[in-house]
């Protein structure tokens, strides 16, 4: 079975829709004034618990400012930087066609860096001629550190006409201190967002037309603390009772948690039909009238919603597509009520909603409802068809999150999910054990029922093993060759991936000729433009083979091509980015650019770190050890070599790794010998020389620090560096060695 999808991954439209402005909302000019402080700043932070009118305040403010708005309502699935910024870029694109295009393209590069895409977006936004406000609503849902770093990155680089408004229930783990100190942050917090008695009166008496006296308003404000959501619920409730003043005085004596109490009594005032409707709709979160009709077996949802929206604030309409949203706190407590009255209905409602969304191609929404309803079949069906699109669009993390929720039996039935997940772990990194589990599922199925495993699955699994060098180098080569045979015979989309993966395995096996041939075949494939990941992998293999052959220029060309395919790999965090970094680092090492080489190789080594030893990681340890040795950092080199040796034993590997380890060891031994015999590998810095001069006197460490106007710590640190460079461990030895090397004469004359 072919599973291919060049479609872009599905977008949940409702996430890009701000709530519609209400004509009869309570006007709160002081909030708008506070937000206008952004004229001198760049970022507005609106932070308060749920139900404080944050979204409304920002929405109203944006309208008043006549700015263009790119609105994104975040949720837990946005803990994937690619997905988060795809939504922001799409929202920008809706402001003006083309604003988000460049960023979206960069986001689709697998293994590309997020910062690269953010730069592209900010550059595009800078060209927009009016003020643009990017609103991130429900930012508290985003906790992933990579996501947060990318937001920090953006906030530090905003063009003058672009502002960010962050709406959140909890203070985000962003670097706000710097923004605050620089006066670039405007904050609107709970105490400001709480209703004043005047505003409460406007809501209840003027807009709500409820007969209440000043005392009643005081009581309500006192009990609720000015919590807007509670006051809104109170207004709905009190409009439905005969004697509002008595109701308020009873409420004043109540100890029950305000939001729950008010939700309950409000439900009590509604007509049965409306009550039932709201109880059920509260499960849906976001919905349209059609969705409600279908899921709740009705035909009158449209008119109910219109009425509700007009008469009270339990339901809000969003700006686009006929989507509605229920008052979130009310919905929370309504759901509990529903669970108490009809225990299985929540799950059933989600299942129906999932099917409705699926039928209309609302795939992102369908998955969310299906997961909430534990309707895993639907999730599996969608992912089987779209997993490649997700990976290609850089949403591997999202894909993994979805797949992990599915029962193992379901994945065993649909092995496309297992291979999709295996590839996704490789893109995301640090998933060796998980990858093995998924590939094991495939292997078991192959062993048990060979006919059941489709060619696509078999090819992908083999290619994944080759790419990750599993189970070992020899095995990876076998798998790679198998993948290539199958892919070429089937003429399907896996060809480039299979060829590149096999080429990598062949390189590690030492089969340079064949590795080169395969990688070239990949690069020359007509499909290569669309297969960025496979392309980068092929270039990686070509660069390394060229290096082995001593062809530095060729190697550099291929390594640079790999890098440019992925954007700025300096901040890329994926396996493929690591390979590109390793290739470039190796080239730099060969050319003698040791500082640059160390930086790139260290980056790659960190990315290849995983729960278990791997060929890639061990290889990087050795490359790093070699460069560090050449830079005179023998301790680090020795430690890395030791780790590598241990890993080689664990992996049971011979071949290239062992040969490389032997080479590196020989280099280290020689360097250590040179150091011991008095040759300095790295000369001391001028600051270190100053300390050295005084070490040769009678002064204590503290006196040396005082004389040089340094802290004791600094002197200690220079001293340690000197000992290391001189290959000694005591002050006396250091002085003796330094004298022998003529270093003491180089130092300034004593004061």
């Amino acid at each position, binding site marked *: 079975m072919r599973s291919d999808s060049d479609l872009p991954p599905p977008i949940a439209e409702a996430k890009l829709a701000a709530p519609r402005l209400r004509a009869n909302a309570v006007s709160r000019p002081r909030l708008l004034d506070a937000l206008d402080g952004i004229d001198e700043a760049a970022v507005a932070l609106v932070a308060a618990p749920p*139900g404080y009118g944050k979204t409304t305040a920002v929405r109203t403010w944006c309208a008043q400012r006549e700015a263009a708005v790119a609105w994104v309502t975040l949720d837990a699935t946005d803990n994937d930087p690619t997905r988060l910024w795809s939504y922001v870029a799409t929202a920008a694109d809706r402001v003006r066609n083309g604003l988000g295009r460049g960023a979206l393209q960069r986001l689709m590069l697998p293994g590309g860096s997020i910062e690269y895409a953010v730069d592209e977006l900010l550059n595009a936004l800078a060209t927009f001629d009016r003020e643009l406000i990017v609103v991130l609503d429900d930012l508290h849902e985003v906790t992933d550190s990579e996501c947060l770093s990318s937001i920090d990155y953006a906030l530090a680089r905003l063009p003058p006409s672009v502002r960010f408004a962050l709406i959140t229930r909890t203070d985000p783990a962003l670097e706000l201190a710097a923004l605050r100190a620089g006066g670039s942050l405007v904050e609107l917090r709970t105490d400001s967002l709480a209703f004043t008695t005047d505003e409460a009166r406007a809501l209840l008496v003027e807009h709500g037309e409820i007969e209440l006296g000043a005392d009643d308003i005081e009581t309500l404000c006192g009990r609720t603390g000015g919590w807007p959501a509670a006051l809104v619920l109170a207004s709905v409730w009190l409009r439905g009772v005969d004697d509002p003043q008595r109701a308020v005085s009873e409420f004043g004596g109540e100890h029950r948690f305000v939001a729950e109490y008010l939700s309950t009594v409000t439900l009590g005032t509604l007509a049965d039909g409306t009550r039932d409707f709201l109880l059920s709709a509260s499960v849906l979160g976001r919905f349209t009238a059609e969705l409600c009709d279908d899921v709740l077996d009705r035909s009158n949802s449209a008119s109910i919603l219109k009425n509700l929206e007009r008469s009270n604030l339990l339901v809000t309409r969003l700006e686009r597509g006929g989507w509605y949203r229920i008052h979130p706190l009310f919905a929370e407590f309504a759901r509990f*009520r529903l669970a108490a009255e009809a225990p299985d209905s929540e799950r059933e409602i989600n299942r129906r909603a999932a099917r409705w969304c699926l039928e209309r191609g609302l795939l992102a929404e369908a998955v969310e409802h299906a997961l909430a309803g534990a309707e895993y079949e639907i999730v599996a069906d969608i992912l089987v068809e779209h997993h490649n699109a997700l990976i290609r669009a850089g949403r591997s993390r999202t894909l993994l999150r979805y797949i992990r929720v599915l029962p193992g039996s379901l994945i065993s039935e649909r092995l496309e999910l297992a291979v999709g997940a295996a590839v996704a772990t490789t893109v995301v990194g640090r998933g060796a054990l998980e990858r093995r589990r998924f590939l094991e599922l495939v292997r078991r199925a192959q062993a048990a029922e060979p006919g059941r495993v489709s060619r696509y699955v078999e090819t992908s699994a083999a290619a994944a093993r080759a790419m990750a060098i599993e189970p070992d180098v020899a095995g990876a080569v076998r798998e790679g060759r198998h993948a290539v045979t199958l892919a070429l015979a089937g003429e399907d989309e896996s060809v480039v991936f299979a060829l590149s993966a096999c080429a990598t395995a062949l390189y590690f096996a030492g089969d340079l000729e064949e590795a080169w041939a395969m990688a070239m075949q990949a690069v020359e494939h007509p499909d290569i433009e669309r297969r960025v990941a496979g392309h980068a992998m092929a270039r990686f293999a070509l660069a390394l083979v060229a290096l082995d052959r001593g062809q530095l220029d060729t190697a550099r060309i291929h390594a640079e091509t790999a890098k440019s395919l992925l954007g700025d790999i300096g901040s890329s965090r994926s396996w493929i980015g690591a390979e590109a970094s390793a290739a470039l680092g190796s080239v730099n090492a060969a050319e003698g650019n040791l500082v640059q080489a160390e930086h790139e190789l260290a980056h790659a080594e960190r990315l290849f770190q995983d729960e278990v030893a791997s060929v890639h990681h061990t290889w990087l340890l050795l490359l790093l050890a070699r460069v560090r040795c050449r830079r005179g950092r023998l301790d680090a080199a020795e430690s890395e070599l030791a780790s590598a040796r241990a890993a080689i034993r664990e992996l049971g590997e011979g071949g290239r790794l062992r040969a490389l380890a032997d080479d590196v060891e020989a280099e280290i031994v020689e360097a250590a010998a040179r150091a011991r015999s008095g040759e300095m590998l790295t000369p001391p810095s001028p600051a270190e020389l100053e300390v050295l001069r005084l070490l040769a006197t009678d002064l204590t460490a503290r006196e040396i620090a005082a004389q040089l106007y340094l802290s004791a710590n600094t002197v200690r640190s220079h001293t340690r560096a000197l000992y290391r460079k001189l290959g000694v461990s005591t002050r006396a030895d250091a002085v003796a060695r330094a004298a022998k090397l003529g270093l003491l004469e180089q130092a300034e004359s004593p004061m």
Partner: protein
Amino acid sequence: MPLCDYRVVVDGELSDDIAPAFEGMSLRREEGRTVLVGNMRDQAQLQGVLQRISDLGLTLLSVSALDDEPSF
């Protein structure tokens, strides 16, 4: 972190309807507050409870580990 009972106190009295939100914890109303007590397997579970409290708009008053006290 070994298994330990935690006591979490929030402002406002919650009805028993809400108990499912805090599965595995006992719920006791006391003079305008609610006391939730339960055994926490690990920090992740405890943080989940705190998250739930935040989502419901509750005001958190205190969280304490009941190291040597018997569980309910």
